[in-house]
């Protein structure tokens, strides 16, 4: 088993290291640690507790035998259909921040730099939130990180327009892209950030995405993640978030596409009176695998977290929700809620849900609930008796199921686009 594991890992390392530039913006100690961890632990297979339903070793063995790292470029015209009218667009192409494809209009108080352009102080922040020794994909990303960007919202700035980040990859061959960013909201600032991955070309693309997000005191980050890749898209998406005192981190993740999508959404509440909202909706079909892992780590007293994840699984697809909540010993007066609701749309589809609450404080309010069922036949019959046909009745019920999550999105244009795509469920 061990030999097999390192085989895949070694093969990945070999096939990407020849073409990868030396990662100049992360210090050597961290890089070495990352590489060692990766070599020791290997790409996780289903024996790994956290990847039980998401055997990444098998995915690489099956789908990425011939990683060639031949990247293609895209034009502004290619990206136009994805851009939002009222947002500033930033573009990352094949893992590297592209100043050329990104909008020039930069909002007041917003600073954006590619990692390689950062000064030493800036560079120190990279890899300060995501521990390279906590997960093989964090290690892999760190060791071979693309030249991503640092986005900083200056203190006291309230952004009036959302920032829309497009992570674009294009290839005719099999590629592995280590996309990475660092988003920093300084004290008293507020921003809405939309993140979306897009793939072009005929090649299969594995995106190993890592975002470090830092929300300083009295700040508010509203984060929307929209995932709708084709069957050529494979990804592990890690969000490592630190939330300070009196701050809010509000995320909604909508997954409508991608062959294998694994999300690791890890939020640490580090300052009192901070709040995290994690909402998710996914719709899996054919033989897709969509796996959402969330972690909310209550480290201090008087914080609140609220989680709502909903999923649909059709055909032979597999959906996973694994929600961990830690309430540390000091985190008294914590309010932590979690709910996961799923609908199976075929007899061959599977949903695996696992709420995991670990509570070490004694004065807390925590609850969780999970349900997986079929479409409500009584509700469908009720619609039918009013003249609404089977197919449209089914659509109405599924749309209303998704709506609870999609309604959390306050950028109307994005919400409309997601609803249009969701229509095809």
């Amino acid at each position: 088993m061990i030999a097999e594991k390192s085989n895949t890992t070694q093969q990945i390392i070999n096939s990407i290291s020849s073409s990868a530039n030396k990662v100049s913006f992360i210090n050597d100690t961290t890089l070495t640690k990352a590489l060692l961890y990766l070599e020791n632990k290997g790409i996780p297979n289903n024996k790994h507790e956290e990847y039980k339903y998401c055997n990444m070793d098998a995915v690489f063995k099956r789908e990425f035998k011939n990683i060639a790292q031949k990247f293609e470029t895209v034009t502004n015209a290619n990206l136009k259909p994805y851009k939002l009218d009222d947002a500033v667009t930033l573009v990352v192409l094949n893992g590297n921040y592209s100043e050329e494809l990104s909008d020039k209009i930069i909002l007041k108080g917003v600073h954006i730099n590619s990692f390689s352009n950062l000064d030493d102080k800036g560079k120190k922040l990279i890899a300060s939130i995501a521990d390279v020794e906590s997960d093989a994909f964090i290690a892999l990303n760190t060791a071979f990180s693309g030249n991503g960007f640092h986005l900083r919202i200056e203190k006291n700035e309230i952004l009036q327009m959302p920032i829309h980040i497009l992570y674009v990859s294009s290839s005719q061959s099999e590629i592995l892209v280590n996309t990475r960013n660092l988003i920093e909201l300084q004290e008293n600032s507020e921003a809405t950030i939309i993140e979306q991955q897009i793939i072009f070309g005929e090649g299969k693309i594995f995106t190993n995405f890592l975002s470090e997000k830092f929300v300083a005191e009295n700040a508010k980050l509203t984060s929307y993640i929209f995932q709708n890749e084709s069957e050529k898209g494979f990804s592990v998406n890690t969000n490592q978030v630190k939330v300070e005192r009196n701050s809010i981190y509000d995320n909604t993740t909508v997954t409508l596409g991608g062959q294998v999508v694994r999300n690791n959404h890890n939020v640490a509440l580090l300052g009192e009176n901070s709040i995290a909202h994690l909402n998710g909706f996914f719709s899996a079909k054919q033989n897709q695998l969509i796996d959402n892992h969330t972690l909310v780590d209550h480290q201090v007293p008087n914080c609140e977290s609220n989680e709502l994840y909903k999923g649909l699984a059709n055909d032979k697809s597999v959906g996973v929700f694994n929600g961990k909540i830690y309430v540390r010993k000091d985190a008294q007066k914590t309010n932590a809620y979690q709910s996961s609701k799923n609908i199976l749309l075929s007899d061959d589809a599977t949903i695996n849900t696992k709420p995991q609450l670990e509570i070490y404080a004694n004065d807390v309010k925590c609850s969780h609930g999970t349900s997986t069922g079929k479409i409500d036949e009584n509700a469908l019959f009720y619609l039918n008796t009013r003249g609404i046909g089977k197919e449209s009745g089914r659509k109405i019920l599924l749309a209303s199921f998704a709506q609870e999550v999609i309604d959390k999105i306050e950028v109307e244009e994005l919400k409309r686009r997601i609803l249009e795509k969701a229509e095809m469920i």
Partner: protein
Amino acid sequence: MENLITIKNLHASVDGKEILKGINLEIKAGEVHAIMGPNGSGKSTLSSVLAGKDDYEVTEGEVMFNGQNLLDMEAEDRAREGLFLAFQYPVEIPGVSNINFLKTALNEIREYKGLEPIAAKDFLALVKEKQKLVELDNRLTNRSVNEGFSGGEKKRNEIFQMAMLEPKLAILDETDSGLDIDALKIVANGVNTLKNKNNAFIVITHYQRLLDYIVPDFVHILYNGKIVKSGTKELALELEAKGYDEIKKQFETV
């Protein structure tokens, strides 16, 4: 005059257990029929079978509705042909607004009949008009279907939907259960206003009380899966006075 609905020797089972054991019933347009019977006699099964619920298996008999074989039709086509079931327990559908639901229903029925979708303005005018009939306020019309409605509000919503869809035959399945006297009057008033020479009603009830307000032309007593006695409205009064025990004794062996 032709029958609006003709039920002949209808047998139905659920999970292999026979519930309806040969129902015969003929209803003409303009008539109100009450079906009464003790718990477990098959009242709700009859309404579910007529509305087209999948859980029931029709093992024998036929139902002609409006000149067509009702049992061959999907539930939605039965509705589009003019059959309406007011549920004993209306279903809550979170996230689906009452108003959008009704608009979809109305338009699917119109499409079936080869009509254009209703104009938004006309639809809203219709909602306003029909809402008044059952004193359902805007707050409820705009909420999710039946979600958080009180028992009475749910039943009024059923009658409101009926008013919107203007069926030829409406089956009211224990619409009176869980209603206080004021709500009962509102519901009955709605039905009486909608009643005309072209439509008919089947009022299924356990008690005579509702029939003081919706006066039936015929009363049938359902017991053990069969109609054991039919008569005029006096039969309901007789039943109320004597109770179901008499019926049970008389027809125990049926």
